[in-house]
């Protein structure tokens, strides 16, 4: 089905069994001492076992002045060697090629983790991290080049097949390349040649110690910043570096001035940055890889077929489903658990300085404890509620050999996610529920849709255990500012008719702090509300929303002229005019027609409580929103965890 995807590719002395690769991604599985952990090994081993062609392990620190967090591998110290050697050998036993990403962040970091001054070619403040770096002296540059080489030597010792010099994402090497961050007047700055010098020296030093291992780069194909490197500039850079000899070229995108592009969420069209690789591939013979928003083997095959690249990075796609390559090879396309580009549990957790997981795949980073094993004592289990939580519980329970009956009172499975994916640019979120539904249909779970479970059903069913995944519901708005203006909850807002929205001035009160207030605001604005204002009492609207989704949502809201007011408090209402205080200012929002109060939903535990009283001998479990109102990944995680417990 995918002939090109499964054609091996030889890079110097290593042969990739197929063209699917995972680009470097920080996992936060390293220990605070900068060592490889068992968790990290298990994580990568699962992906290698899944049949991936090449794994580029996470960005590893080449020098003590760089660290994204407390949990990065200290490749600048020999102490990492035993762990790293084990990691590499475990990946290699499946024929997967393994590459080490040599990384220095330069100024694009904060000094909290290293407790040393951050460093860069010029003392220009990083626009995102807002710290002023120390300008590297020439001696320090020399030391830096040497540290790249020393780190590369360690990687070679650990058995890596290849080395990747990280020249992308606005980190140290790109900071030297770009005139925006490099304003040196010595031989490392100014002209094209001079700005290129550091990259050249690093790559040469790495190649000098690489021996028979291959050496490639990852580089941004366009800086997307006015005054920065354009695609043509980057093409010149790559041609110059390639002339010195590169074994592969990885194209990427994104840095401090356009951060979301490094981690494209579902706003970005699929494969939207493949053109960057394509425009390099037409210039060089060296193998090229493309990345970003490629989550489907058919798209990957098409990219290869059209000749845009030689390898296709499917990084998050293989976080979401490590078995993607095998499933693609066996043509089990429907079985591939999709990455929906939500960023909620991979990048989102990095930002919270926690190890990565995945919205749809709770076993990420828990490969050992979350392995699905057959139940020693198969039971008859009822699962009440067909939202993401209940479906996950049912799926895993039946995989373990339990006999499962799934009750859902609505005609369709999917639960609140049906609403969740109905707001603008969140449609893709439902793909995870769609996958669960297909998995359930293939399993021997008895699915009862349009069937509200009652105490009687649970009593009569002779169940050994019941899993409640009954979700949460929106009740009366938690606040009513005035009787003059109708106040409604989120669910009611999603059900408004067109004439209730058009040309209305709508106020959205964010008391949920996630994406929902922004989602409903955008939807109402798209439906031609006259004006939409989002209020939050916090320092930021949608305070707890994953940052990239938020940045992208702001942009769209801006375009739709939706206004946000943070640190806001409704002081009083005059007729239909709302007077709001904001950091000492008073803002009048005139003529409000409708107030949408976006609260946290309330748990729906009625049935669970009844069972507790009436059937005390029945073992019960709570999953997802009915345990505590949270998000989809929490529901899925609960479902999976409970299914292993039953």
């Amino acid at each position: 089905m995918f002939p090109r995807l499964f054609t091996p590719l030889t890079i110097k002395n290593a042969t990739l069994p197929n063209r699917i690769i995972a680009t470097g991604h920080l996992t936060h599985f390293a220990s605070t001492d900068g060592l490889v952990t068992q968790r990290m090994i298990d994580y990568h081993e699962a992906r290698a076992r899944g049949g991936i062609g090449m794994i580029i392990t996470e960005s590893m620190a080449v020098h003590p002045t760089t660290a994204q967090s407390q949990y990065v591998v200290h490749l600048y110290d020999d102490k990492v060697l035993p762990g790293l050697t084990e990691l590499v050998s475990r990946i290699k036993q499946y024929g997967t090629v393994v590459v080490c990403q040599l990384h220095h962040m330069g100024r694009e970091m904060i000094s909290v983790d290293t407790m040393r001054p951050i460093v860069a070619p010029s003392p220009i403040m990083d626009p995102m991290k807002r710290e002023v770096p120390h300008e590297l002296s020439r001696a320090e540059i020399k030391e830096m080049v040497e540290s790249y080489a020393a780190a590369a030597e360690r990687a070679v010792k650990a058995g890596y097949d290849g080395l990747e010099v990280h020249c992308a994402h606005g980190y140290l090497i790109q900071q030297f390349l770009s005139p925006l961050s490099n304003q040196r007047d010595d031989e490392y700055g100014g002209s094209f040649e001079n700005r290129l010098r550091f990259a050249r020296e690093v790559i040469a030093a790495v190649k000098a110690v690489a021996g028979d291992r291959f050496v490639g780069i990852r580089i941004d194909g366009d800086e997307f910043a006015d005054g920065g490197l354009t695609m043509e500039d980057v093409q010149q850079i790559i041609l110059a570096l390639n002339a010195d000899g590169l074994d592969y070229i990885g194209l990427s995108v994104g840095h401090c001035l356009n951060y979301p592009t490094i981690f494209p969420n579902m706003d970005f069209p699929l494969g939207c940055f493949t053109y960057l690789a394509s425009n390099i591939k037409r210039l060089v013979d060296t193998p090229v890889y493309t990345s970003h928003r490629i989550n489907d083997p058919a798209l990957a095959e098409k990219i290869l077929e059209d000749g845009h690249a030689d390898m296709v990075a499917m990084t998050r796609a293989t976080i979401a489903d490590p078995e993607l390559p095998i499933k693609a090879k066996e043509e089990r396309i429907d079985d591939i658990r999709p990455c929906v580009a939500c960023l909620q549990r991979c990048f989102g957790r990095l930002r919270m300085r926690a190890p990565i997981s995945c919205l749809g795949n709770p076993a990420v980073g828990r490969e050992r404890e979350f392995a699905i094993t057959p139940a020693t004592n198969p039971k008859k289990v009822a699962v009440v509620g067909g939202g993401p939580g209940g479906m996950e519980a049912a799926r895993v329970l039946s995989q373990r050999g339990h006999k499962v009956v799934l009750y859902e009172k609505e005609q369709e499975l999917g639960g609140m996610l049906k609403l969740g994916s109905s707001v603008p640019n969140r449609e893709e979120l439902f793909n995870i529920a769609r996958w669960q539904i297909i998995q359930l249909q293939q399993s021997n779970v008895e699915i009862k849709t349009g069937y509200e479970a009652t105490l009687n059903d649970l009593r009569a069913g002779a169940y050994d255990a019941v899993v409640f995944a009954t979700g949460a519901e929106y009740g009366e708005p938690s606040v009513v500012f005035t009787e003059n203006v109708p106040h409604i909850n989120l669910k009611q807002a999603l059900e408004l008719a067109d004439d209730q929205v058009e040309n209305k001035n709508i106020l959205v009160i964010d008391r949920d702090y996630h994406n929902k207030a922004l989602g409903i605001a955008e939807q109402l604005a798209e439906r031609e509300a006259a004006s939409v204002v989002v209020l939050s009492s916090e320092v930021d609207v949608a305070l707890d929303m994953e940052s990239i989704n938020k940045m992208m949502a702001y942009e769209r809201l801006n375009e739709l002229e939706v206004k946000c007011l943070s640190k806001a408090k409704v002081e009083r209402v005059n007729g239909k005019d709302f007077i709001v205080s904001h950091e000492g200012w008073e803002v009048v929002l005139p003529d409000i027609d409708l107030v949408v109060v976006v609260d946290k939903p309330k748990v729906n535990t009625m049935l669970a409580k009844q069972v507790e009283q009436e059937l005390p001998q029945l073992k019960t479990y709570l999953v997802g929103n009915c345990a505590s109102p949270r998000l989809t990944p929490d529901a899925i995680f609960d479902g999976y965890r409970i299914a292993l417990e039953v």
Partner: protein
Amino acid sequence: MKVVVLIKMTTVIRGNPNRAENLEAILDPGNVALDVNSYDLAALEEAQRLKESIDYVHITAVTVGPESAVKALQIAHGMGADELIWVDAQYEGGREMELAGLLAEVVSKQGFDLVLCGLKSDDVGTGLVGIGVAEILGIPAVTRSVKIEILPDGGPLQIHRHVGKGNREVVHCPLPAVITVERSRRMPRYPGVARYLAARKKIIRYAVEQQPGTQVSLRHVETKKAQPRPKKIFTPDDNLSAADRMKMIMTGGMARKKKKKAQSVVSGSEQLYNFLVKNGFLKNKA
């Protein structure tokens, strides 16, 4: 049936025949041209006819020579050969048996039922190579063939041999075998341009590993498969601002229609009315 055809480029003298008396002049590159050996073209034609007469004939063309030999493979491909092998090595006249040894290795590596080659070459013309290959492989050889027929039901080949003065000898020969082909009235077909041009991508290249004595062996050389030209892909213009470039990517190159909020008819006409009044076109009645 796997048919391997051995072909090569030969040097042909062209230009003023008077000058050809002068040996020095013959060697002058301006007076010689390279062309596919005419007997080899006949062998390619014969292979092609076999392919047309029965199903499942797979033709591999093999050539030994420097870079210029690739042209022979291009022509072979143009005439319909399926697979192309280039052994990157040079053998002058006088080393025919060494060359035969090398070719024997290639064909047995490749697997074959029938080896076809020209009766002899236009330049050196010893006619030794084909027979040498047969000898080394220990299989029968039939020379001077002008017509090859396949007898039904997997029987032997029926070969018409040229025996001079217009006489033909018809012989039967089991497979595998080597047959050397005579030029005949069967004109070699003209190579198709598209296939001729596409040939370079298909060539499999070997280098010769020199070992002490006459022993030679082959090493497969990774020829980079010709790069497929990337298809056109939407690329934003570098001259646009960064924000505009990004916008184009997000929308796949289509400018998103900015949603203009509908203005009520009343306020539109009101604005026009005010404008006209303000500029003195209309008198304010009120």
